[in-house]
């Protein structure tokens, strides 16, 4: 469907060029300062409507999008659907078409099935922003991770980034792999063989390496990104026990010592302390987990602004 003038979907990082990614990040930098003001509100999106349509539980991402919309003076409506609309006899496309008929400017979608934002984007007039779709992508998470890295490392090109854990089921890993390699970083992924299939090597043309051991990935890294172990997947038996996982794959101070001295630690949350990340590491000064959350609001302000017709800042 032809979208109204300049209204743009954000479905994934895979579709973006390096210039577009940098443009979003530079725009987000401009919005950052608003969040530090005493009166955290500007009229930029006054009169615009944003619907947060969440088919999957979320505290952090939903709140972050809601605050981003409100601080830009958009009207934000939150819809949480615990299970798919199909339980009420309506297809997901009909649900979306009904919301779209109310003429919102942007629909932010999270869903446990990959591709739902892409399916909705084909039928909606509103811009669709992907807030996480199954194991596919979580573009705003990768953007806020990039903003955090840029803030602390002053660059992304040439950095060594380790991503550790359940790569197979992680939309955060996919979005980050696309973003970081597009911007010239070298990404090394590691985790149990059941969760890091060899085919991952071919996910992107260059800049990605699948490492046999966690230690190989972390060695000399500038950034260590730890993925959440999704306990609900434990019934599929991808590894024997959480105990064994924490011993062999968890990020401890000893493993972190293999990274560069000034390496930073990122985690998309929510954390399982003592499983994929030890509390020592999580609470250390190298861990930037709360910075990630903080920058998330600015990134989402930029995304809402751009998807509803705003122009990119050129750095």
């Amino acid at each position, binding site marked *: 469907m032809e979208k109204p003038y300049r209204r743009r979907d954000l479905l994934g990082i895979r579709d973006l060029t390096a210039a577009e990614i940098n443009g979003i990040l530079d725009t987000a930098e401009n919005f950052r300062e608003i969040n530090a003001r005493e009166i955290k509100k500007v009229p930029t999106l006054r009169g615009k409507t944003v619907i947060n349509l969440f088919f999957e539980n979320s505290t952090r991402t939903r709140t972050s999008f809601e605050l981003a919309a409100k601080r830009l003076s958009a009207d934000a409506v939150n819809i949480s659907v615990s299970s*798919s609309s199909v339980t009420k006899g309506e*297809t997901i496309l009909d649900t979306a078409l009904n919301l779209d008929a109310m003429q919102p400017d942007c629909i932010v979608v999270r*869903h446990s*099935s990959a591709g739902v934002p892409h399916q909705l984007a084909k039928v909606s007039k509103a811009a669709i922003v992907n807030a996480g779709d199954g194991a*596919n992508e979580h573009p705003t998470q990768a953007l806020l991770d990039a903003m955090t890295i840029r803030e602390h490392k002053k660059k992304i090109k040439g950095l060594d980034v380790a991503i550790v854990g359940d790569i197979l089921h992680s939309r955060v890993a996919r979005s980050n792999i696309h973003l970081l390699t597009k911007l010239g970083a070298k990404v090394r992924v590691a985790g149990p063989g059941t969760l890091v299939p060899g085919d991952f090597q071919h996910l992107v043309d260059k800049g990605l390496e699948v490492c046999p051991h966690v230690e190989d990935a972390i060695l000399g890294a500038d950034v260590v990104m730890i993925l959440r172990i999704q306990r609900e997947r434990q019934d599929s038996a991808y590894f024997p026990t959480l105990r064994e996982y924490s011993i062999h794959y968890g990020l401890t101070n000893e493993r972190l010592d293999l990274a560069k001295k000034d390496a930073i630690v990122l985690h998309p949350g929510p954390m399982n302390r003592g499983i994929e990340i030890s509390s020592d590491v999580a609470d250390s000064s190298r861990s930037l987990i709360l910075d990630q959350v903080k920058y998330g609001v600015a990134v989402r302000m930029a995304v809402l602004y751009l998807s509803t017709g705003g122009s990119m800042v050129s750095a």
Partner: protein
Amino acid sequence: MRLLIKNGHLIDPGAPENTGMSVLIENGEVTAWLRHGEPHPEGCEVFDASGLLVAPGFIDLHVHLREPGQEHKETIATGCAAAVAGGWTSVCPMPNTNPVNDNAAITRYMIEQAERAGLAKVFPIGAITKSSDGSELAEMGEMKAAGAVAVSDDGRPVPNAGIMRRAMQYARDFDLPVIDHCEDKSLSSGGVMHEGKMSLLLGLKGMPALAEDLDAVRDIILAKETGAHIHIAHVSTKGAIEAIRRAKNEGINVTCEVTPHHFTLTDKAVEGYDTNTKMAPPLRSEEHLEAIIEGIKDGTIDAIATDHAPHHADEKALEYDRAPFGITGLETGVGLALTELVHKGIISLERLVEMCSANPARIFHLEKRGSLKPGSIADVTIIDPEMKWTYSNADSRSKSRNSPFDGRNFNGRVVATMVCGRVVYKI
């Protein structure tokens, strides 16, 4: 009642030298071949096939007609209408109806419904096990007596090798081919597309090729031991094709079919998450498509079958994960074979007719079909091999619209179909 199909280009794999013949049909049977211009009996209706191919009626070994039980997706009448519009004069519906076609009464019902519709001929496939639940053998002998031509549990393949062995031992006595949808579900369950680079890229759960390879190899070993005829449905992997090629060389009684979508598309088509790209077996990667083309060329693959699997629009308008497997195929199959195989120089028209008619008739022992020699039943598929056309879901005769080929351009089209000497479709 007499009909003369004259001036056409006759292709009969059984008689390759007789291309320049007109076909005389009397009372539903082919009675003679006449040279063009040779005087013909009086009172003859004439079908002028100048510039057209005249072939023995095409036989689709693998369709889902949804009746009884799921008439909102398709009925035997609508499915047969789609069949003849696509050039298929006979279709073999799988038993996954509701209730399952696991007894003679349902087999007879399906045949009667087809006779009432008066379009394509229906040869039902009976279930291997009762309710296709993989435990107890269904009454194969009774179903055969009622008109079933093969047995299969299709989308619910028998997981237990012991039961599959017994099914083959038993089916062999009745001369019934055993058809297997090869999928070891312990490897593929939860998957929605081919496992590989594309599934990782799209974040969808994969169905590995080896789930098909393993089941195919198991079946071939069982067929060798039991002496039964195993027919591998919709083969889609390099591994399964290689196993079948080896088995044929060894003299094991194995045959197989391929679907038009598997020789046309790859898993790249899943990009965009159109649920009309979701089927089982899934669209595979380039390397498997190359193996399929090789198997079509060298004769390892015997037949083209559509696996026509209609689903209601509401059922496909779901998340990719949740949408049902399957696409319609009756009206696009021959067009795809002409466009993707014949016009690209992969196979000849003669080989196409062999794969769509002569071989299917041989595989399911359909007497007097698969050829237009005098004495044959006058099922005829007439093709304009050069006609350019565009398929549109909106024009489909099927009750369902779940085809990924909506809007696709084709080179070559079925222009008329005759069943028992009667014109049942003509554009």
